């Protein structure tokens, strides 16, 4: 088959997202919270990622942060128009115009690496060890199970648990909005 494997394509996009988008997710979440728009933050963030997932390629996007923040802003406006509330106070009005006006700094990228390290360290010990073997060292499920003398089923469960903790906590500032 000559067509590119859709899995390869989405893998390349996920790779790009991990560098260009994830560091700025927190900024987008905070902006949504601060804007006090009557919209659901999680929905908008997920839909913004869905826009990227639907792309054939991301090579045309020069500035991931700008792209992501602009997408979040336009989705927030769409959601807002769907609600029955017409009046927005001036803060929301203003905050809308302000997203992404700050200079992007290397802080965001450093922060994202730091955040993920912090979350990995926060995993329960066994969960963290299994995650290390499979994710970082590249063991297969079977190899990890044999190495640790546990069933493959346990490996699968613990990996799911690790991923759940990382994805639910990443960028969410303690308690979920």
């Amino acid at each position, binding site marked *: 088959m000559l067509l590119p494997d859709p899995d390869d394509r989405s893998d390349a996009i996920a790779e790009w997202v*991990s560098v260009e988008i994830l560091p700025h997710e927190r900024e987008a979440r905070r902006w949504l919270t601060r804007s006090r728009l009557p919209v659901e933050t999680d929905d908008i*963030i997920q839909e913004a990622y869905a826009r990227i997932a639907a792309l054939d390629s991301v090579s045309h996007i020069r500035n991931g942060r700008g792209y992501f923040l602009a997408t979040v802003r336009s989705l927030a406006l769409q959601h807002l128009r769907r609600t029955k509330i017409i009046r927005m106070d001036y803060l929301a009005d203003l905050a809308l115009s302000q997203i992404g006006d700050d200079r992007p700094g290397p802080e965001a990228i450093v922060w994202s690496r*730091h955040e993920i390290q912090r979350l*990995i360290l926060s995993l329960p010990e066994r969960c963290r060890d299994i995650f290390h073997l499979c994710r970082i060292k590249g063991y297969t499920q079977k190899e990890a199970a044999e190495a640790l003398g546990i069933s493959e089923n346990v490996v*699968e469960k613990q990996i799911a648990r690790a991923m759940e903790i990382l994805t639910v906590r990443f960028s969410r*500032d303690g308690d979920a909005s």
Partner: protein
Amino acid sequence: MIVSGAEDGNAIDRIAAEWAGRSLLGLAPEERAALAAWRAADPRHAGSYLRAVAIGKLAVKAHTEDRQAVAEPVPAHGEAAPRSFVLSRRRLLGAPLAVSLALAVGLGVYHQFMADRISTERGEIRNVALSDGSAAVLNTVSTIDVRMEPARRTIDLVTGQAWFDVAHDPARPFEVHHGDMIVRATGTAFQVSALQDGMEVVVTEGTVVVLRAGGASPIAQLRAGQRLTVEQGQVQQRSLDPIHVEQSLAWQQGMIVLDGEPLAAAVEKVNRYNDIQIEIATAQLGSRRVYGTFRARDPEGLAKAVAIALDAEVEKTDDRILLK
């Protein structure tokens, strides 16, 4: 906060995480089909799954870089490490621990960086993510020095005004220093402003303790909604209405709230944001009180409003606006 009727975002992220974990371990063809169907069922599913996979990749990246920072290569840890080898269980069980330790050392190395200086120019309001997970927002013409150390987090407010949203970490107190005053927090949000001869603190979440440098016991403890000023050594503490707390944070939205202060003081505030400076012709006009919410970057707007409200005249040149 409005909760949408159907699935909540957290629940979607949980399912997406489980899928990302399973695809990490390798999916059977029928699982692949099930995943594709789930992703297609709702755009949020596809988005959440992409995010989860990317977070998994970020974990590998952060780890790899950390290894480089530690600069103490451990054999058999190369990225292309051979898969088919036999190791004793003891060594294997030790390995993750060693990795965790290396991670911890790596974080330590990171924290030994010298102070990072962050500044804003005139008219600039800047959001900064600090490496410990805290956030700072700097107002116009402000400077902070950030020092992240293993046992504490120290910020020097050199000039201006900044609001901090502190990541909770009881083991590493978060301190903001200005002059001989120290504001200490563990996990909370507050704002510190440099005054002519002192400092102002407004707490928006949680509590902070205020100390004098070298002093053993705190001089004050502040709760959310409280404000403390130290001016020429005089300490004043009071509770603010929620509206006043909002107002003191309005600059983060680029707004200035004038709450009955003399026009001269209001103009001084606005001038901190703009190259075009407002000047007031007479002391009498400068003493008139002004109310309202204004965009900090729109001196002309303020001048026009003042002209209408106080029956003054506006004279505009290239770099200044004269009110008379």
